[in-house]
């Protein structure tokens, strides 16, 4: 996929959560321009470049990043911090995905510049609806901003 066309960057280590989110987005025709990265390390490599792959720039980045918080090695918080402190990437909307509203890190995420967060619902219908609403919202918002 051409990076210019990239719309959604999904960073999620739980394969089921990722598959279900992609499925929900696909049903709305929103998953064509989606890239799924399976952990924080992959995410950093993709966003900031590694080897022959270039880093994302101001004019060339996804419309929204959906970021899971709890991941091994490099967690969502670290990815968020890096994205929001780099002038080239800080304007990308980042939506935090978390399993629990109890998450003590939610507050910290906002301080770091997260644009919103959503608690992944247990029920599939809610889950799909949330993911779809979110995708629409941020993609539309971003179009307006551009």
């Amino acid at each position, binding site marked *: 996929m051409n990076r210019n066309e990239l719309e959604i960057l999904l960073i999620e280590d739980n394969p089921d*959560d990722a598959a279900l989110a992609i499925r929900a987005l696909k049903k709305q025709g929103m998953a064509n321009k989606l890239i799924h990265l399976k952990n924080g390390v992959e995410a950093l490599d993709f966003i900031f470049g590694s080897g022959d792959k270039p880093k994302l720039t101001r004019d060339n980045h996804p419309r929204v990043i959906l970021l899971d918080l709890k991941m091994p090695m490099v967690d969502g918080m670290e990815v968020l911090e890096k994205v929001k402190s780099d002038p080239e990437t800080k304007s990308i909307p980042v939506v935090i995905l978390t399993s629990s509203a109890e998450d003590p890190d939610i507050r910290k995420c906002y301080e770091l510049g997260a644009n919103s967060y959503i608690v*992944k619902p247990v*029920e599939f219908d809610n889950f799909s609806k949330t993911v779809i609403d979110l995708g629409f919202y941020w993609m539309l918002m971003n179009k307006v901003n551009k």
Partner: protein
Amino acid sequence: MNSIKNSPDPPGRFIPDFENRMNKLLDVLLKFTRLDFSTQAEVSSRGDEIDAVALGLNTLSEELRELRLKEQIQQEYVKENEERLRLLVGGVKDYAIINLTPEGLIESWNQGAEKIEGYTEQEIIGKHFSVFYTPEEIAGGEPGNNLRAALAQGSHEGQGWRKRKDGTLFMADVVITTLYDELGRIKGYAKITRDITQQKEAEIKILELNNRLWEKIQEMELINSELEAFTYSVSHDLRAPVRAIHSYSRILYQEQAQNWDTESRGMIQSVERNAQHMGQLIDDLLAFTRLGRKEITRTLGLDMTELAREAWRSVADTARAYPIRLDLKILETASADPTLIRQVFVNLLSNAFKYSSNNPNAVITLTSVKEPKECIYCIQDNGVGFDMRYYNKLFRVFQRLHTTDQFEGTGVGLALVKRIITKHGGRVWASSEPGQGASFYFSLPY
């Protein structure tokens, strides 16, 4: 006397009589000097100067006799008092009360001193009071320092380890007071000693217990924070698989089940329903634990009627299917946390709602009574009720008195109600009979 005898003779006719009478007067005077006022001077019938002196002496002797009597009474009184004080001090057993000379030698001793320090009176009188001090304190000049401090400030109080006759140590509380005589010269010292070893030990013990309590509190706090971390991890880690189970079974049902037989369709729906129930259990458990940490913020004059009405709206919204009537009386206001009390109403009303859903004429009645120290609120329904034999399980977490096929639920609602009300300093209770409806009560102090 001699001067009178050897004086030049007065006129002759007076001589023998004069001398005789003067000598008698002199005798009386002499007795005066020995404080003897008992002899009367002889008064002749002559009415001359000697008689005048004799009369004067008699008046004087009478006055002196009275004065002397008063003085004797006073002295006896003082002596009596001194004796009483001596007996009193001597009999004091819990305090060592002793007198010291200005040099620090022991002058008097009481029973308390014997009991506390171990010496008998005979053994100790005349010894220097430094025998009570430990060798280190003597080396440090402590006994002398204490006396000097008492002299400088009038009295000196201190605590320290002192030595008994048998060499054992005790913690002493000592007051040394400087004593002065009538002319302001130092007479010595009064030294009052109390054995406060037990008190000191008790203090140390209390301190130890406090420390141990503090350690326990810290331990508990650690456990609590571990529990919080555990709760968080439960919410995170358990929700993910439940979400996957629920989602995949839902997808299968929606997209594949039309090709399956009835039994298989039923089974996949069972999977979905159970996953949903488990999700609810996790959420309720979280809500329950969260409440343990939450501080209550009281609102004074809280409008309980309005709160109940709001709660009813949200309950009726989610269960619109059943036509159930709410009979809401005007409730007493309360001093309570609005968010939490709203939760109480939601839980009690949704319970009442749930367990009355089989009754076509279901009515839920909400009333309150003002008692001397608390307001009591009652939610009454005419639903299925419960069996009082299982009452002790009613307010326990994850305990249910109905099966899930009868009525949905996780068994957290009433436990949550109890926790909220208890946090407010109130009580919860209930009464029912199967088939006769149930009444739930909670009280809030005001």
